[in-house]
């Protein structure tokens, strides 16, 4: 009884602007792909299939692909949602994310390799 009333409310409010359509097919595809994209990295690492250096890049690649898969099939992200503002916010975030990540790694790597052992070596060589 109250359900019926709400249904009417919803229809009036929405006029089909809920542009996200939740479909079982999308979720099934996303789930199957995610399962595969998760299982392979675990297998690669637990089974010692490849050289560690190669494995590192391969599993990062798998993570990136799974990110895109879940964004499309679970988060239903596309360039048209919210007049493109969703996508713009995402792009800005990705840019900031890359700056934060690569900047930190770059700066701290150089500080580690150049300063810490270098300072120790210089000090000892200066003293002799």
């Amino acid at each position, binding site marked *: 009884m109250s359900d019926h009333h*709400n249904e009417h409310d*919803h229809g009036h409010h929405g006029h089909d602007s809920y542009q996200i359509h939740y479909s*079982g097919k999308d*979720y099934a595809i996303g789930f199957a792909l995610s399962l595969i994209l998760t299982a392979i990295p675990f297998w690669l690492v637990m089974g010692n299939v490849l050289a560690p250096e190669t494995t590192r890049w391969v599993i990062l690649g798998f993570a990136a692909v799974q990110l895109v898969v879940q964004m499309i099939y679970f988060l239903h992200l596309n360039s048209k949602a919210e007049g493109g503002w969703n996508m713009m916010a995402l792009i800005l975030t990705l840019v900031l994310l890359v700056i934060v*990540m690569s900047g930190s790694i770059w700066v701290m790597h150089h500080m580690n390799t150049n300063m810490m052992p270098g300072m120790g070596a210089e000090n000892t060589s200066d003293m002799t």
Partner: protein
Amino acid sequence: MSDIKATMTGGMTPAEVTARYMAREHHPEQGTLLGFWLYLMSDCLLFASLFAAYAVLGRNYAGGPTGAELFELPLIALNTGFLLVSSITFGMAMISAQAKNVGKTKLWLVVTGLLGVAFLSLEIYEFQHLIHLGAGPQRSGFLTAFFSLVGTHGLHVLFGIVWLVTLFVQLSKHGMTPENFRRLACLSLFWHFLDLVWIFVFTFVYLMGVLP
């Protein structure tokens, strides 16, 4: 009441008053979802800084245990499975919500919530186990970064579960109103976002931590 209005607005009819204060430009219908998306993006930056801290400190063991010694990958695989399955059960809840089937939506919400609880329990067990081994957050830079990153994700899952329970109560009380559907759509974004973050946690922290 209307007398007062008339004197205050200088003799305009109510219709004119409304017209004056009505926004003329087109508003996006789903302002809430866009706003929530912006929140998620800022949350993303929070995680980015935690990931950056882990990237920098992740190998500073200070003579303590390493990731290869501590991490139990089968456990992590199981936890990953819990979270992934909870993603699709939440999808089922959204499909039921779209079909305005309150009973089914609530059922799928319960399943999702239980999977979330299972995930959290395993994570708490793992944390306790690590602390018991003397590998608590104060042991080394690696463990500090590890606990803050994984712990922050766990806290998000906890709040997701609290939100889920709240919505369950709301659905029981008010049924599938437009407001409740909107809230469900927001929680759906949040829940899937947590799974997204977890992809990078298990890849970057656990799998790469085990590699030499």
